[in-house]
């Protein structure tokens, strides 16, 4: 089985988010970038397929050279090869088109992407890719087993979960649950050394259109002071929620 893990390079979850003075761009100054958490779950599941079922694992990112440290981290965790599509991601449609091309050229059986990137929260790339390639797709995936070309996946639905059966080739929009939290790996020294020698190919983008563009950013309005209510006076809380906030 040949697996491609699609990795987006995102600000660390603890990052403070700032925009440039004219609010037209995300200000990356001082921001630490990491593997998108939803993709880290997919990568970890891919490592399991590699170790238990002899899968070959590649990772792909659409981005300029600044994404390479994140890709090296994926190689240090255990991916065999990395492919960087050398283009600044314009929007979901553009990225999906680039990744679809990588999938076609590499003839992957299983493509593990994430439910969403935690930066722009688009939640669209894997589904778009599935449409472009006309292959099976399971989103918000919380468990995945593959036996030959048959796949059994669980997906989260509102208020529960659903078990699905399908076949490879298959695209997954993964999220927490796909692997145990304790299975997530931190690259060790040996992994990091080996990653330096692994192949990271840079490929040019294909012609692709985009359907949208970001025109400006805005910070959330500052929060007012919290109103503290005495623990002995819960009637007051109920009164506030009923008469002031009008939520009960």
């Amino acid at each position, binding site marked *: 089985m040949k697996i491609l893990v699609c990795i987006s390079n995102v*600000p660390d*979850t603890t990052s403070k988010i700032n*925009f440039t003075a004219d609010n037209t761009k995300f200000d990356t100054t001082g921001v630490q970038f990491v593997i998108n958490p939803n993709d880290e779950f997919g990568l970890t599941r891919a490592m399991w397929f590699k170790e238990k079922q002899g899968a070959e694992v590649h990772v792909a990112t659409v981005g300029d050279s600044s994404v390479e440290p994140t890709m090296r981290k994926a190689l240090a965790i255990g991916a065999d090869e990395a492919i960087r599509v050398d283009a600044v991601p314009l*929007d979901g*449609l553009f990225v*999906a088109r680039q990744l679809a091309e990588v999938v076609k050229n590499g003839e992957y059986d299983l493509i593990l992407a994430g439910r969403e990137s*935690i*930066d722009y*929260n688009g*939640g*669209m790339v*894997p*589904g*778009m*890719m*599935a*449409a472009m390639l006309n292959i*099976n*797709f399971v*989103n*918000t995936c919380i468990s995945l087993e593959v036996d030959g070309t048959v796949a059994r996946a669980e997906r*989260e*639905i*509102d*208020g*529960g*979960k*659903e*078990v*699905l*059966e*399908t*076949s490879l080739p298959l695209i997954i*929009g993964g999220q*927490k649950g796909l692997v145990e939290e304790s299975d997530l790996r931190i690259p060790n020294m040996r992994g990091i050394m080996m990653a330096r020698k692994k192949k990271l190919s840079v490929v040019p983008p294909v012609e692709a*259109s985009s*359907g*949208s*563009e*970001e*025109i400006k*950013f*805005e*910070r*959330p309005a500052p929060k*007012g002071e*919290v*109103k*503290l*209510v*005495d*623990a002995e006076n*819960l*009637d007051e*809380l*109920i009164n506030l929620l*009923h008469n002031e*906030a009008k*939520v*009960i």
Partner: protein
Amino acid sequence: MSVLVYTESEKGNYKKNAFEVASYAREVADKMGTDVIAISFHADESETLEKYGVSKVLNVTDPAYQTFNAKAYASALGEAARSENASVIVISSSTDAKYMAGILAGELEAGYATNVVAAPESTSPLVVKRTAFTNKGFMYTQLNAALNIIGVSSNAFGTRENPVAGKVEGFSPTVNNDHFTVKSVEIDQVVGKATIADADIVVSAGRGLKGPENWGIIEELADVLGAATACSKPVSDLGWRPHGEHVGQTGKPVASNLYIAIGISGAIQHLAGVSSSKVKVVINTDPEAPFFKAADYGIVGDAFQVVPELTEKLKEFKAQNA
């Protein structure tokens, strides 16, 4: 030209978000000077959508579309969009809608914005405001394609009545076996209980509760309020609560009217995922807990005392205000 809206139903009954997306679609259509067409699958009483400004409902009743299938539904929406000459498609932020819409956008080469929180800034060009960086910021996205999809955040726009004269028609999308190659074999879903995705009130608890055996007081509070229950990430990692209850940046987003956080410290990853809730109440023993800075109302106190007492008082309140 028209605005197409995907109105979701469950066992024939429209979901709350169906009326919200219909209201949103009406607003877009008004700005564009056009009509709203809805597509429903096996929905009863489709006339109710007229109240929210829908002029025509396409109701799919083919048995093949009885249960949700992302690819088949996407293809049906694509066909409806073509036959109704839609230039905008409006969908909700439900798990199913998001699953379906990625496929739809890829098929139609559509512009697509998710988590949209307000009516469009303008319709030509089409500019929408959406949350980004898991609620740590907003982004204005311009949708440039011939056909564009707007995914509306739950509870952001609300429902608005706007009655029009309407009609309901049957709609029979092509049934193609290739669309059903992902098969549902089992559904495990809590019925009759509010879900985090659409609840008006969410009661959430964290590691401060000390152990799974103590969740009774959380469930009782949620019961009185008709609320959904949720938890912080470590609580689900520890197996105290199911993964589906985990909210935050790497869990489910919460956009309820009221969010009550009990024994949750308020780490940045947690806050990011819940901050679009309108009113937040925090109950925590530690007055320095970061959550107080993000809350509207706070109680410094022990959950084991405060929560049962609050439940009792709410029961009295509900009895009086019933």
